[in-house]
């Protein structure tokens, strides 16, 4: 077989109507919708089909179906989501999400998903932090796998229909696995396509398309300890910036409270929140159930004050308040961090999560099979007999591409975004289970938005700029052409170290400034890293190209974190404790000015009165300035 050489100039051109970058939950859902709207659709993914990061989601998918507690409905879900995000969420997104999630879950069932069942044979729902009622549709602790497999199989089912109707399974929807996009290509103001390489061969491809949906997931590989996989290098965030779109809320990074801390090799591996949802409790080295000491004032009336009340809640949630272990993630992560700092941590620098003393062994095995498996195989810990050692790690980014809530379109015509790469929906902190539902709701909307956009422009299709294509190619080949330069792995691990230690869970002005200074130096080094070997399946080269994105995103996070002088959700400033209602009204927007990251402030759109009316004035007072509140007395009771 002949190997294509580095200097192979040929670039394959692939014309489509809609190109979806990402084959996780949001990308697949978007592609399905675009195809159903009659558009010729490509799905592109860095990894193999069916392996995207969504596969790792464990706990479940939040949707107010009310199958377990009939009191649940979209309004309760909306309220929980806004509270979890500390009212910084884009309220329109939170509204659409709460209203549409149930149908999206039911749709999955009709496509072949097999969720766990209630006694009546309906989809079962489980408790999770910040959700007032049992709300997460789930399959044991492998819900993400079920979701991705179902969507994958739905794509296959559509291809099978096309094989029968059109004689070619790939006539209308085609998957380009192990293909990485490194640049979006434009025609003036509009998006016109995407440039990338095929991992297997190193060959370059250009997807010519008037509409591109970014569904690339998160930014975890910017941090040292993360539950995220190698794919999470912030590609979509960076591609959007480079194409002229804006990012918002980038200072809000979720550090999920419970991850394995030992052995080092698995540090950061997620321990699902379902362990707590199903009764697991957190203890310090003195055996104290410490979460009772960390209930913040805004949540004081909603959480139990004694262990007895907390324990009664599992069987009688209508007459007791929730255990504090189920507070939103940011609260629990900070509490874990504080206990360790105070010297009450576990031997390997975490805290104890105990399910063994709370449920019979068979029950643990039935409800949490992969957790059992994970601890047994990787740490020699039997979770039915002993507590787990857990600690926080980077888990999710709330920030992302600013989009129109209804269509997913960014400020660049033809560029759409959905899933973790988009911003706004979760405000300053995401509730567990709200991501999988977000992927479905907004994946569908972005797919539809893209299809409608393509229909709207009709024959006025853009032509990709040849100049931009040539520049993208040169940029991609650069690491091979350097004869001197560093190894990308070294630079990458230093960025991760810098971000985790200086712009991590707890932040200060001085440390963020130090991080920015170090990032500036690292950026120079990243610009000249070198790849050894050839273009075919070469991970060193791939990382060299990913570094550009990692650096850009690290800088966005650090700049926004420096600017926001308050603590809220996934942004804790030790030097600016507490929420400030003035800051609640502001979004921090990031864009590129030349090759510099530029930051601006943008006021939030006031919430629609009918949605505001879903909250009691007394609750809103905790978040809002006096002028923003509805006049006293007019309040709906």
């Amino acid at each position, binding site marked *: *077989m002949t190997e294509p050489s580095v200097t192979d100039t040929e670039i394959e051109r692939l014309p489509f109507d809609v190109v979806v970058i990402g084959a996780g939950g949001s990308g697949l859902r978007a592609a399905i919708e675009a195809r159903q709207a009659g558009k010729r659709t490509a799905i592109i993914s860095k990894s193999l089909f069916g392996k995207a990061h969504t596969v790792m989601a464990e706990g479940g998918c939040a949707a107010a179906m009310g199958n377990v507690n009939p009191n649940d409905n979209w309004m309760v879900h909306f309220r929980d989501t806004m509270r979890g995000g500390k009212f910084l969420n884009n309220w329109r997104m939170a509204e659409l999400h709460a209203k549409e999630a149930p149908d999206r879950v039911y749709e999955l069932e*009709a496509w072949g998903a097999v969720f766990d069942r209630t006694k009546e*044979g309906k989809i079962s729902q489980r408790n999770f932090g910040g959700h007032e009622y049992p709300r997460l549709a789930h399959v044991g602790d492998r819900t993400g796998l079920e979701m991705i497999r179902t969507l994958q199989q739905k794509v296959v089912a559509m291809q*099978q229909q096309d094989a029968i109707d059109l004689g070619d399974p790939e006539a209308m929807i085609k998957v380009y696995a192990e293909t990485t996009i490194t640049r979006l290509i434009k025609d003036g103001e509009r998006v016109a396509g995407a440039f990338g390489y095929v991992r*297997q061969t190193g060959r370059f491809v250009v997807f010519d398309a008037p509409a591109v949906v970014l569904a690339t997931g998160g930014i975890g590989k910017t941090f040292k300890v993360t539950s995220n996989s190698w794919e999470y290098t912030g590609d979509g965030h960076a591609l959007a910036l480079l194409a002229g779109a804006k990012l918002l809320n980038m200072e809000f990074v979720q550090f999920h409270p419970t991850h394995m801390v030992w052995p080092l090799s698995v540090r950061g591996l997620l321990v699902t929140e379902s362990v707590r949802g199903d009764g697991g409790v957190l203890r310090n080295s003195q055996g104290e159930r410490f979460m009772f000491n960390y209930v913040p004032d805004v949540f004081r009336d909603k959480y139990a004050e004694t262990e007895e009340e907390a324990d009664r809640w599992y069987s009688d949630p209508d007459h007791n308040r929730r255990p504090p272990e189920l507070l939103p993630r940011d609260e629990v992560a900070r509490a874990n961090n504080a206990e360790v700092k105070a010297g009450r941590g576990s031997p390997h620098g975490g805290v104890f999560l105990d399910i063994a003393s709370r449920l019979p062994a068979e029950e643990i095995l039935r409800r949490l099979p992969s957790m059992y498996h994970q601890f047994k195989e*990787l*740490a020699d810990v039997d979770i039915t007999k002993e507590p787990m050692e857990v600690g926080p790690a980077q888990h999710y980014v709330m920030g992302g591409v600013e989009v129109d809530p209804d269509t997913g379109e960014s400020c660049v015509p033809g560029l759409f975004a959905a899933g973790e790469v988009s911003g706004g929906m979760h405000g300053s902190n995401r509730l567990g289970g709200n991501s999988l539902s977000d992927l479905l709701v907004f994946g569908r909307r972005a797919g539809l938005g893209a299809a409608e956009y393509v229909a709207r422009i009709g024959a006025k299709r853009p032509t990709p700029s040849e100049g931009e294509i040539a520049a993208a190619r040169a940029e991609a080949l650069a690491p091979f052409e350097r004869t001197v330069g560093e190894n990308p792995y070294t630079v990458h691990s230093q960025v991760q170290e810098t971000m985790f230690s200086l712009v991590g869970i707890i932040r200060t002005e001085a440390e963020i400034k130090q991080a920015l200074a170090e990032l500036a130096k690292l950026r120079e080094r990243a610009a000249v890293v070198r*790849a050894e070997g050839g273009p075919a*399946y*070469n991970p060193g080269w791939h990382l060299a190209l990913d570094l550009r994105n990692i650096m850009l995103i690290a800088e966005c996070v650090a700049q926004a974190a420096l600017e926001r002088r308050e603590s809220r959700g996934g942004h804790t400033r030790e030097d600016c404790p507490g929420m400030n209602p003035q800051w609640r009204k502001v979004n921090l927007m990031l864009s590129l000015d030349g090759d510099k990251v530029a930051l601006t402030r943008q006021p939030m759109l006031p919430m629609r009165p009918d949605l505001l009316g879903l909250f009691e004035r007394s609750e809103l007072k905790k978040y809002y300035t006096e002028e923003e509140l509805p006049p006293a007395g007019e309040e709906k009771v």
Partner: protein
Amino acid sequence: MGNKVKLRVWRGDAGKGDLVDYEVESNEGEVVLDVLHRLQATQAGDLAVRWNCKAGKCGSCSMEINGRPRLGCMTRMSLFEPDETITVTPMRTFPVIRDLVTDVSFNFEKARQIPSFTPDPSIGLGEFRMQQVDVQRSQEFRKCIECFLCQNVCHVIRDHEENMPAYAGPRFLMRIAELEMHPADTADRREIAQDDFGLGMCNITKCCTEVCPENIHITDNALIPLKERVVSRKYDPLVWLGDKITRRVHQDTQKVPGKSSGHGAARSDSRAKPGRGRHQR
């Protein structure tokens, strides 16, 4: 803290390749994938290895470690003697792309030939009613992470590429079983399981079950019951009619046609056909 371990890794591509010896540092509690990553970061920047989740959840990091098909991310170094040389090679049943990465497109092609979930179209959104006991079996099979280790180990196609066109392999015979056992499915794939997907070629050696990282009882719970269903359909139509009379269309569902242009045509020109370019040992 770290000690040195001896690693012998297959390096090469579809054309040729060889085992290469390395000495790499390893720390307590690590898995084989950690050590391969350290090798990549310090000595062999271009070492090709697939991985994603590093948590045994995505099924990307399938390889053969000392000849045994395993997930690199779930194989702990403590399994081996400290001075043992650990040999890491790509899955043998699939053509090599580079180093430890193989072309697994055979699997995606098979997946596309199996008729999909076919519910009764009159059931509306949210109206499915299924009991936990009735979905348990399909759920067991849906734990599959598509690592294709079972496909790799099954002797029907391992070293017998001539059988590949007529045989779906354990993962996809199990997919047929999963759909057949789904309480809301109405299609009947028993005939094609036998005729088009080669169920008869499986002689229940259970090698597939032994390597499955998800501990799915592929042979006992999927393949043998599927064989029984096929037999009952052949010899006693009343049994299956009775079994499924309420919902099943009394007609065999056909294998899905399709030009097999492969999965991801950006690479179709350079893609070796399954079986071709298999590395030599």
